[in-house]
């Protein structure tokens, strides 16, 4: 009795709504409409506006000149200073990726292969600093890396060098802070990828006589590449777009694309050129996502086919 009544009465929810005259997706549209409208007006329109600004206006003698122009882009790619800033941005983003990969593997292994207690401790220790404001962490690094900072005091105290130079206001400071701040974004996808690897595969390698290092290099590493590509794309695009760390730790000596945008607008009011830099930044971030997630994942799939 109970079974037959549930069979006749419990209609699948989607089909139940199909019988009405209005299209079945209309209520869904109403639910999403405010958010879609909000993002179209307050996000997509402003970003597209900046993009068009970069090709329809330029500043000549402090006044905006309208009309289609690529002058902002030719300036961006022909002036040596801007090219150097672009290269520095890409270099720091690439180096941050490399450092994060090296540091993230031990942590990810600790999360994915450690005891439950260890996994939890490492996760919390990796993720908790994310909740601390990025300005605070940048300040912390400046307190460590400045001329009288903690690092130099330790170096002097240990008698390694009498008058060590400072790392603050150099590319190194920006790199160190980027690695610190974006490390969690490498660790978490890697840990997920490693925990999905079947342990019996590792056991098989060990029984077959592989050392721990060989097991890692020939088994765990190739199988973790999907997680690695997610982490690399995140760290690369976050570092390339970083603003706060270069601003506080790089000073005026090593601006990145983000700091260059701010300079152009705040100091020079050159909106069209700043818009062109902004577009370049978007392109760099999108390209890194496409390259690392699409292209590399396909390569990785072929590579890992051998490892399976």
């Amino acid at each position, binding site marked *: 009795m109970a079974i037959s009544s549930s069979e006749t009465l419990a209609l699948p929810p989607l089909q139940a709504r199909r019988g009405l005259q209005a299209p079945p997706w209309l209520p*869904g549209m109403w639910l999403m409409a405010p958010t879609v409208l909000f993002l179209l007006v307050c996000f997509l329109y402003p970003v597209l506006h900046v993009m068009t*600004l970069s090709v329809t206006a330029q500043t000549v003698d402090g006044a905006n000149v309208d009309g289609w122009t690529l002058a902002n882009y030719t300036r961006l790619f022909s002036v040596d200073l801007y090219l150097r800033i672009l290269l520095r941005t890409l270099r720091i983003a690439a180096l941050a990726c490399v450092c994060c990969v090296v540091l993230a593997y031990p942590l990810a292994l600790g999360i994915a292969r450690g*005891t439950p207690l260890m996994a939890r401790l490492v996760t919390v220790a990796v993720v908790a600093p994310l909740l601390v404001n990025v300005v605070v962490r940048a300040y912390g690094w400046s*307190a460590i890396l400045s001329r009288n900072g903690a690092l130099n005091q330790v170096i002097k105290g240990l008698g390694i060098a009498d008058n060590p130079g400072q790392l603050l206001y150099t590319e190194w400071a920006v790199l160190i802070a980027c690695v610190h701040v974006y490390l969690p974004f490498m660790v978490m996808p890697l840990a997920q990828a490693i925990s999905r690897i079947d342990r019996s595969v590792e056991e098989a390698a060990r029984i077959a006589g592989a050392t721990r290092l060989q097991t890692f290099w020939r088994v765990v590493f190739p199988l973790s590449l999907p997680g690695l590509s997610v982490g690399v794309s995140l760290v690369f695009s976050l570092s390339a777009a970083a603003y706060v760390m270069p601003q506080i730790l790089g000073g005026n000596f090593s601006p990145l694309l983000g700091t260059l945008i*701010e300079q152009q607008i705040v100091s020079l009011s050159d909106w069209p050129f700043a818009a062109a830099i902004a577009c370049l930044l978007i392109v760099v971030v999108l390209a890194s996502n496409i390259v690392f997630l699409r292209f590399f994942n396909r390569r990785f799939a072929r590579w890992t086919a051998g490892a399976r």
Partner: protein
Amino acid sequence: MNHTINPWLRGVIVLILLASMMPLVVPMMMAVSDTPNIVFPPRGFTLKWFSKVLHTEEAQASFLFSLKLAGVVTLVSLALGIPAAAGLVRFRVPGKGAIVGLVLSPLVVPLIVTGVALLQVFSMLGSHATFLQLVIGHTVVCLPYVVRSVTSSFMLVNASLEDAASVLGASPAVVARKVIWPQVRPGVLAGGVFAFIVSFDDYPISMWLADGNHFPIPLYLDSQIQLSFDPSIAAISTLMIFFALLLVLVIEKVFGISIARLAT
């Protein structure tokens, strides 16, 4: 076969974690140093820098302003994000892929560019509603986190429970309140907490949209770093670190959301 982590590896893990704690620990040590300028290792012990900061009116005002802004942004993000997530999961809407792309795209566009774009449009409109501008700017960035988190909990909702409830005579409102809400709540809480933190911590968007009367705490901290060199900056940093710790504890105890879940 033993699966415990190799002692060498464990040592490396401990070292990396210790190094990553340094930028949080060093300011704390400096904040209690009894010298008028920043020195390391700290000398003496004093809490005077903390009392100096706590009695600074601008610091208080910035902190309270950030709390208010983050609170409003969280409410607006939830009000927009929960229905959108429900719509995305529950209905086969034409153009769903495009809508998902639109909702998640603020995560891809660099924050500094989003801020510039908003400032450009606001100044074109001649807007002076700074608080509204900040709420709009922060909500754009917080929405994707809310939608993602709520969407994933909506996908776990067990449809047969809803059918059972309505077969037994529950009205749609009762089903929503008593059957759907308890299952979606964890995702809503996680999304709300994340929106609050993202808004409270934001620098690159506020930088463009704030003014002297609407000055979020990250901007205040940055302006102090540029201006002064006494340990009161270290004291503000320490207070903000403790505030973050407090948030973690509240999140874990009251909401029962693990930080690991927040991050993923």
